[in-house]
Structures are given as C-alpha cells and as structure tokens.
C-alpha cells in the first residue's frame, strides 16, 4: 500500500503562550488538491511550515510520502516545493536566471534543466518575459515566477501559502488554472487560503481550521450536504407597508416543520430549510395565503461560508488578526 502524500497525526505547536496548533490530524491522497481554509491566525501557516520542515512541531507527527519531517528533513525537502505567502523573487535576476538558480539548489543536471525551464516559462505564462529582470514585474508576474521556482524539480507535493493573496481577479484565475494543470500532471497540491471561492473552485478536499483545530474535513460538496439544509431567499416588492407582511411571512414559515431558521435582511427573507424537494412549494403556499407580493425567489445550496459558520459558530470573515 502506498503512503498518502501528506499525513498529519495529532500535530501540536505553541509559540510561547499562544497555541498555534492544538492537535490536528489529516491525510491527503496523492494527486489531490487539498485546501486548509480558515481565517488569519487559525494555524494554516504554522501547519505548512511544519510540513515544509521550516518549523518543528511540539508534539505529534507529520509525514510527506511516508517520510517524517522531523527525522529526515532533507529527504522531505527533495520531495516538496514551497511557495510562501510573501513574494520572494530577487529583483536583480531575470526569469531564466531565477529558474537556473533554483535548478542548482535542487541539483538538476544541465541536460534536464533546459527543457524544464522552457516548460515552466510556458506553464506560468511568462513566455516573452524570460530575459527581463523581476525588478520590473507586476505583483502578479512575480507570483507566477515564485510559483515556477517552486516547481523546477517536479515536486511530489507543492505547498502554497495563500497563493492568490493580493492578486487581481484576472491573475487570480490564471494562477488557479496553473494549479489545476498541476493536478493533471499528478502533483499533489496543499494550499492555505482564507478565500472561500478559492477553496471551492480548486480543492478536492477541504479542512476547515479555526483556532488551531480542524472543525470539519471533506470535499466541498460533502461538507455542504452534511449541513442538510438549503437556502430559500424571498424578496418582496419594497415598501414600508410590506415590512409587516414580511414579518407575518417569517412567523408563518417558522411554523413549518422543514424550516430550520430565518434571517430578515431589509426586503429580503432568508429561510434555511431542510434539503427537501417539498420545501419550495410549501413556502410558496404560505406566501400566497398571506397575499405577499413576491419580487423574486431563489433556492440555493449553502456555500462553504455557511459550512464554516455552522462548524465554528462565527463567520469566516472575522477570525481576528493573529498570525500563525
């Protein structure tokens, strides 16, 4: 039986009195994109740093393809690529010089590197920029170059800490497409993010991490359906007289067995219902009985934000400023 790409067992890490990791366990299969989703200070960076041999755990174990990160850090470093959150390009060097530099650090032969450098320049969309110095690059181009540097040795596992932090929408999508291409080539990608859409779009599996603990783990789809609830949003034609009607509707639907909760927001009512096909007709019926003028009605599956809220008791956005 082959080892998983990443295995973490009861990992703990404190920084002085601050608990960064309170004992987390997880496994990532080879060839998957795995996301650690959580607010700043949740323990994402600490986890990646331990896996990339840049920090030592206080307790617990971590392995990359069966190799222990504490007992054989060099063995692990040969297998992994690590692209930190901050940009780490050298402004004096060109794209090609960067890749040749990292090729030396990863002991690539002259024969192997030429084709690899060419491929990476094409993969990361830096064709035509090979001989320009990074000094003149935009943030997005620097990020692409950072990414290319982490891939020079065809790592088995690539660690990306907040890969799209600070990038504009366009570059963000490009970076996502490279990450998806990596999976096609069989690379395991382990990324940290505090963007819901990034986790949702890219990841085969997601671990929701908060205050150094894993709150939930699974595929985005499975996590959503575990909530066993959908969201029905009703918007009524806006006028003050209708406010009373909206409250009447809220009271009426709350009595229905399928309704788990409601949130009123201006002229809109969000109704959380059990995943049940009869939910929409039942609510429509209640609204018709009260002769409420409906402007629009939508029925949607919950997002990872609702999953996060459910498991941690607070929204992803206000996780505090502590770094870890």
């Amino acid at each position, binding site marked *: 039986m082959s080892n998983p790409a990443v295995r973490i067992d009861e990992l703990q890490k404190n920084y002085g009195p601050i608990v960064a990791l309170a004992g987390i366990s997880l496994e990532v299969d080879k060839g998957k994109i795995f996301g650690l989703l959580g607010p700043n200070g949740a323990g994402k960076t600490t986890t990646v740093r331990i896996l990339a*041999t*840049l920090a030592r755990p206080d307790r617990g174990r971590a392995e990359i393809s069966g190799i222990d990160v504490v007992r054989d850090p060099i063995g692990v470093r040969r297998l992994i690529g*690590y692209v930190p959150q*901050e940009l780490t390009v050298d402004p004096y060097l060109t794209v090609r010089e960067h890749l*040749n*530099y*990292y090729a030396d*650090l*990863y002991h690539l032969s002259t024969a192997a590197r030429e084709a690899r450098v060419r491929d990476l320049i094409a993969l990361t969309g830096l064709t035509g920029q090979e001989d320009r110095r990074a000094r003149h690059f935009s943030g997005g181009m620097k990020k692409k170059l950072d990414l290319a540097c982490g891939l020079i040795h065809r790592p088995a596992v690539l660690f990306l800490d907040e890969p799209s932090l600070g990038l504009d929408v366009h570059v963000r999508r490009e970076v996502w497409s490279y990450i998806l291409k990596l999976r096609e080539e069989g690379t395991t990608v382990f990324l940290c993010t505090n963007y819901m859409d990034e986790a949702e779009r890219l990841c085969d599996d997601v671990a929701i991490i908060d205050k150094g603990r894993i709150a939930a783990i699974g595929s985005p789809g499975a996590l959503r359906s575990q909530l066993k609830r959908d969201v029905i949003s009703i918007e009524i034609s806006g006028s003050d007289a209708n406010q009373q009607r909206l409250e009447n509707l809220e009271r009426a639907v709350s009595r229905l067995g399928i309704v788990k909760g409601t949130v009123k927001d201006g002229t809109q009512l969000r109704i959380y219902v059990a995943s049940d096909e009869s939910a929409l007709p039942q609510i429509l019926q209640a609204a018709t009985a009260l002769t409420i003028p409906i402007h629009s009605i939508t029925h949607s599956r919950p997002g990872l934000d609702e999953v996060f809220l459910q498991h941690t008791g607070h929204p992803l956005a206000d996780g505090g400023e502590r770094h870890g």
Partner: protein
Amino acid sequence: MVEFAQESKGQFLRWMIHLKREPFTMAFSLLNPVILLIFMGGSFQRLAGDFGGDDYRAYLLAGVLALTVFGNSMAGGIPLLFDKESGFLFRLMSTPITRTSIVVGRFLAVNVATMVQCLAILLLGLLFGVRIATGFAGVLTLLGVSFLLGFGITVISLMLAFVLENHGDFFAVVGVSALPMTFLSSAFVPVESLPGWMRMLAWVNPMTYAIDGMRSLILSGWDGAMLVSMVLVLLVFDTIMLWLGARVLRRHLA
C-alpha cells in the same frame, strides 16, 4: 560533495549577477580609497617625509588596500540580511541544500569583488607614480595578503548577518567599527608614532600586521621574516573567526 559544489555555485552566480548589475555600487565603494590615495596622499606628502622615504602615496597605498578590504568584507553580510528580511532566506531553507552553501557562495562572491577592487587600487597607485618594490610577484602577493585579511573580516560580517535582527543595526555596527579599526592600525601613520594605549590596541588589530607586511612589499622589497610573521598572524585570525563563525552559523542555520 558534487551537490554541495552545485549549490554553492548557484549562490555564487546569483551574487555575481548582482555585482554585474549594480556597477554603481562597485564604483561608489571605490570612491573612498581613491579620495584617500589621491587627495590625502597629495596633501600629506610634505608633512610625511620622515615616515617612509619621500612618497607618502606609496606609504599610504598599503593602508588604503587594507581599508578597502575591511570596508568591502565588512559589508559582505548585508545582502544576506536583506534576504533574511524579505523572506528569501526562509524559502531557501525549504530546499534540499546544505545550508553552509549560502555562506560559502556569499563568501566567495565578496572576496572576488574585493580582489577586483584591490587590483583597481593598485593600478591607480601605479598610475600616480607609485613603484612597487617587489614588482609583479609583489602585486600577486599583495592580493594574497588582502585575501587573508578579508577572509576573517568577511566571516565576522556573515556572522553579524545572522546574529543581528535588521540591517539598521548592521549599518550601525559597521559604521562604528570602521574608524577605530582604521585609526588603531598603521594605516596612516606608523604604530610607533601612536600614543601608548592606542599602540597597544593597534598591536591586537590584524589590520596592522597586514598593512605593515603590504607596506614592506611596496616600499622596500622582500622581507622573509616580516612576511612569515604577518601570514601567521592572519592565519591565526582567520582560524579563530572561522571557528567562531561555524559555531554561530550552526546555531542560526540549523
């Protein structure tokens, strides 16, 4: 071993690219020695007749060489500090390199730059009419002595890069150390002419030995006993620094 050589080569080449792309820095750091040699050499010429023959410029050349070595070597660690501050160094720690290669690559690059500068200063000296008593072999020996002096000072600088927190602290340390290291040596005047307590400090300053040795090569010719004692002192200095440096780096790079 082959891997270590490749890593060190990679690091070395990176710094060579830096050197090539910032010619202004190189030119600027030559400015101080040039000013010393041309202006100070010129203006002190008449006062200094009794120091070492009648060419104060020739007398000063050894001091200027040592100063250049000191300045360049002492600044050698700064780019590593910038790497530390930017996160570049941290990222390198995730690559399968022997971490000593970071230091070895930088060490070699600093000393190549120093040698180029020393050569430039020697040529400038020749241009201003300084005749080197030991000829071409003497020039090579002067470069060798410069290297022996720069070796230990570069190691000090690399240690500081790992021990100090930020480049502000580093500039403060380098700025404050430059003047005493210069004036508590025989760079501008013979040690014998210094006041007693300064003389004592000058005698424990490796710069003094390097300068006296280089000066005899420039002014008077081959002096076996002088050269041997100078080389021994510099080797002891380098060995102590290397030993200290290895301890510091093991703690900070492990």
